[in-house]
């Protein structure tokens, strides 16, 4: 698995998961690999503390890294809800790490985050229940061998978590396939004979769905389905230092993966995150009101700007990220599909970064210049 572009959480953190399992002496809900306490520790980290553990007769110590930056209480609620056999629906704006959280939960609880249904407008009931290998179906008739299980089917048989990404992008009638699975915890397969007609979910089966309730192209959820989920709203990271740490870490990780180890200073990441928070919250720390762009100013987007600006610096610059690089890449993150956003960005640059450039000079001044230069390409003249 080392030669893949992106490793799933359970491979990335094998050592941590094994150590936590060794430490864990608390009761585990049926079908769980870890107790709720250790699941939470896996996700929110041990705060730098090195936890002692004994595995295969050997003693070791391990610090658990923080993998999700946000409301720890939300993680607790999510884990406790899952332990109580409630399905979990993570809702929130794009780029708030909903999918990451669902992956981490699945990796910690079931040891696998790979049972995933990706919800789209084209998702069919087959993809949630099962379909057939038609060659075998013709040759043998409906046998378990000819049945192609969906991720949900597999999770029910194995007693593990299944992730349902973007559930609201599916048409409501397809979503509702989940209703009976969630309430009866079983799936009927009328084509199969005898006992095989019914698949009962093993303990440990549950669904973690993610959804965006307000994006374009999403469907309503039926209240029957809503009742079967605990909703948890994932918010963007509010704390500047937390978000800076996250973005910084992610950018460096991505650069290492791309074999382009450009130097990235924390202060510059802070500048970038500050700009993102200004535009996301609609107000700056100085109290200036900013018009929020329609584009999503998520942490993930900030990472993407940081990464591309660093690559720019590595290949075309002095191998060291500058504020000018960041400024040049900012408009690309904002100017996506709303023409008003160009005007909003111009106003932001004129009202906020221009002022900071004057007051604090240095990095803000470079950032302002870079962003203006890039904007010039959009309309031929600087803001």
């Amino acid at each position, binding site marked *: 698995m080392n030669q893949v572009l992106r490793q799933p959480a359970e491979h990335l953190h094998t050592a941590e998961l094994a150590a936590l399992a060794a430490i864990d002496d608390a009761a585990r809900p049926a079908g769980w690999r870890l107790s709720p306490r250790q699941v939470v520790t896996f996700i929110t980290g041990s705060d730098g503390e090195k936890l002692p553990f004994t595995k295969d007769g050997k003693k070791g110590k391990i610090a658990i890294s923080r993998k999700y930056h946000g409301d720890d209480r939300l993680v607790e609620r999510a884990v406790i809800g899952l332990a109580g056999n*409630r399905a979990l629906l993570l809702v929130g704006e794009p780029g708030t790490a909903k999918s990451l959280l669902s992956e981490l939960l699945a990796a910690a609880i079931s040891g696998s985050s790979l049972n995933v249904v990706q919800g789209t407008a084209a998702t069919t009931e087959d993809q949630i229940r099962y379909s057939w290998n038609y060659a075998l179906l013709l040759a043998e008739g409906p046998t378990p061998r000819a049945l192609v299980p969906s991720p949900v089917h597999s999770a029910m048989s194995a007693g593990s978590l299944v992730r349902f990404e973007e559930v609201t992008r599916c048409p409501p009638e397809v979503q509702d396939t989940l209703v009976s699975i969630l309430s009866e915890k079983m799936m009927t397969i009328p084509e199969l004979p005898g006992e095989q007609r019914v698949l009962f979910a093993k303990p440990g089966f549950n669904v973690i769905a993610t959804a965006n309730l307000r994006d374009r192209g999403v469907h309503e959820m039926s209240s029957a389905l809503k009742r079967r989920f605990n909703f948890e709203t994932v918010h963007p990271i509010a704390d500047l230092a937390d978000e800076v740490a996250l973005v910084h870490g992610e950018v460096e990780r991505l650069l290492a993966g791309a074999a382009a180890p450009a130097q990235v200073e924390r202060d510059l990441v802070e500048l970038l995150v500050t700009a993102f928070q200004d535009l996301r919250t609609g107000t700056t720390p100085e109290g200036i009101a900013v018009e929020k762009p329609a584009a999503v100013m998520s942490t993930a987007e900030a990472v993407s700007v940081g990464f591309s600006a660093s690559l720019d610096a590595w290949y075309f610059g002095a191998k060291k990220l500058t504020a000018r690089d960041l400024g040049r890449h900012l408009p690309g993150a904002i100017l996506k599909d709303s023409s008003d956003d160009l005007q909003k960005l111009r106003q932001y640059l004129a009202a906020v970064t221009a002022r900071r450039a004057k007051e604090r000079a240095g990095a803000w001044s470079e950032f302002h210049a870079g962003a203006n230069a890039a904007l010039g390409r959009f309309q031929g003249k600087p803001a």
Partner: protein
Amino acid sequence: VNPAAAELLRATPPPDLTQRVVWLPIRHHSPACARQVAAVIARLRPAAVLIEGPRDATALLPHLVDPALVPPVALFTTYTARGDGPPRRAAAYYPLCAYSPELVAVQAGHAVGASVRFIDLTFPEMVHCERQGGQAAPLSDHPRSLQGELALRQGTWLGHACRRAGARDADDLWDGWFESTGADLTPEEFFHGVLAWCTACRLAHTPEQLAAGGTLVREAAMRAEVERALGEVAGQVVVITGGLHTVALPHTVPAMPPPVAIPREEDAGTWLMRYDFLQLDRLNGYASGMPSPAFWQWRWDGQSVDDLLVGIARELRSSGGTSGSSGSPSAADAATAVAQLRNLAAFRGHGRPTRHDLLDAVTSCFIKGARDIEGVAVLAQVRKLLAGDRIGAVPAGAGRPPLLLDFTRQCAALKLKGGLDEHGVELDLYRSAGQREVSRFLHRLQLLEVLFARKVAGPDFTSGDNLHRVREIWRHQWHPGVEARLIEQSRYGATVVEAATARLLELATAAGSGERRAERAARLVVEACRCGLHAQAPALLARARQLIAEDGDVASVIGAADGLHLLITGREPLEAHDLPALAESVLAAWTRASYLITDLANAPVEGEDAACQDLLTWSLLADQLADLDADTTTTALRLERLVDVSRGANPAVAGTAWGLLYDDGQVDGAALGSQLAGHLAAATSDPSLGGRFLRGVLRAARSACWSEPAVIAAVDQTLGLLSEEHFTSVLPHLRLAFAELPPRAVDQVAQLAAVQAGLPTIDRQLGRRHALADAQVGRAAEVLVRQALARDGLLALLESGHD
């Protein structure tokens, strides 16, 4: 166990309950502290129980142990500081719930026969020592809490401990450590933990900070009171104070601050009043923490939080939408939520679920959608339910000033409902004497600035607004602020009538000097009648007459005449028309105004609107007085004075006078038109003269413009003669003048003007099709073209082509 807490516990000596003096640290409104305090007092049976709280409230103790007392109640204490400048008032609450350690200590102490007393500074002393400390809490009408304990919720150690324990904030940590498991600990263990917490908080403060807040002076005084008690009783003494003080009290040197002189008895006082959970929730939100009183009451009553959660689900359902949608949880949701609550509490190591565990269970299970959209209403309603709506009761006559008792009696007699909800009443002032009585009572309360009721509709006889209405509609609502204000105002008298009378007379004295005193005095006569205080009316009227004779401010005298005249017109509601010498007083006021009236003609620009209005009021009064006045001097006097005013310097006021004269038929349209034209063409540097004059005319005789062709003709001719430049400078002022006309009238004027100009119709779309700027460019272009054509001798071509 939190390592930081363990370390601190080791460093803090545990409390010794065998000593002569037992120091018990508490947090205000903490049920866990209350239980432990009660346990200690019951076990030790001390000779004295000393409690942090204003010393002068000790006199109220018998009422606190009266079985008729129903918490929540509050000690309410006021102080008026007199010095240079106006007196400054301050007030503070000291709320007590069933689960407040202080109230529990009072009751437990009483039960074991201990001598119970409060030992903190009195409120005036506190205000003084705060001021000397430099951290002067501003003396304001807004009452504050005497139980502020922000200090117990801040500090680096607490922040660190919260992070380690995974608590949201200090309140959350406190709940987890003390409230949820406190009942399982022995008093020694429990108070050891509280003391450790408070020690950490105390260490986060510098001595300078503590001195600045007056804390050190208070502690010295409390220590002095402890010493005094030790000299007076033989057995053990239990001292119950906020934990921050308990840390220092054993080592504090006793000292009393110098006594505060209270020159007037009514300047300071402490009362017991009923209180309610909603206010407590608000007050605690920023002062002492421990929000959501209904939650703690529930806990205190020993009921399970599961049941509370199920109750919340039912409440949400009964007020919410369809089942299963956000904010309307089904029974299955409630069951899930209870499981979530228990599991969360167990996961977090809380022996009993905390408030945040409850809120988390609600968040997980009752919100079907985004927390910041669908969840807002749900969480707001849950917070309201957790705040509760309980109202306390105070034993009859317990330290309640007679004014408050009278208020309660009157509310009952007049059938005004209590309770925290807002109620509405509709009062027919003209036909029902009973409803008039209610109106008078509510007006008296308004006079006393008791915010019990507000009038949402109805006639206002003091301002003269909405007099055509015959009913008053009021909304009234009880809240602790009502009682607090009544207590403060009890210095005015023992009954609402008495206090309102005293307040009225105070205002009358104040009206003897300062701006517009005649008017203020006259309005007070109306106020007296509106409040049903007719006994005062003759004296107030006499005083008003005197001031009318003295006051040289024409606006004030006109206001006075107008106010007194209302007494005549508002016969039934005010019942003042037979007041002796009323008609004579109005006439006297009007006549005096007539002699001062030319002052209006010299009004400055910024005061001209008011001056025009005054002139109109005065003129209207003359018509109404003609009925009262047998001889016709008013009519003659009015005309004579109007002519004088019409020659005055202020164009707007002069215009109004002209308008009035025109309206009376004293001048014709042509005369009015030539006046207007004269002002428009005035060869002065001020282009606004014409516009202002026109505005004045329109205020008095609106129809003059569209029903009087002579006026239009005069204006049209004048405007035609003006230079381009002069015209553009006048134009904005004309616009302003016409802005006051209704659109239909503007149309009529335009039509008349079009006829004057020889145009058959006016193009109403003109202004919409062409922007003003375009029209101006076009106009300028035309001028240039004409000049060019004239230079080339081609102008005739244009003229002929035009045909």
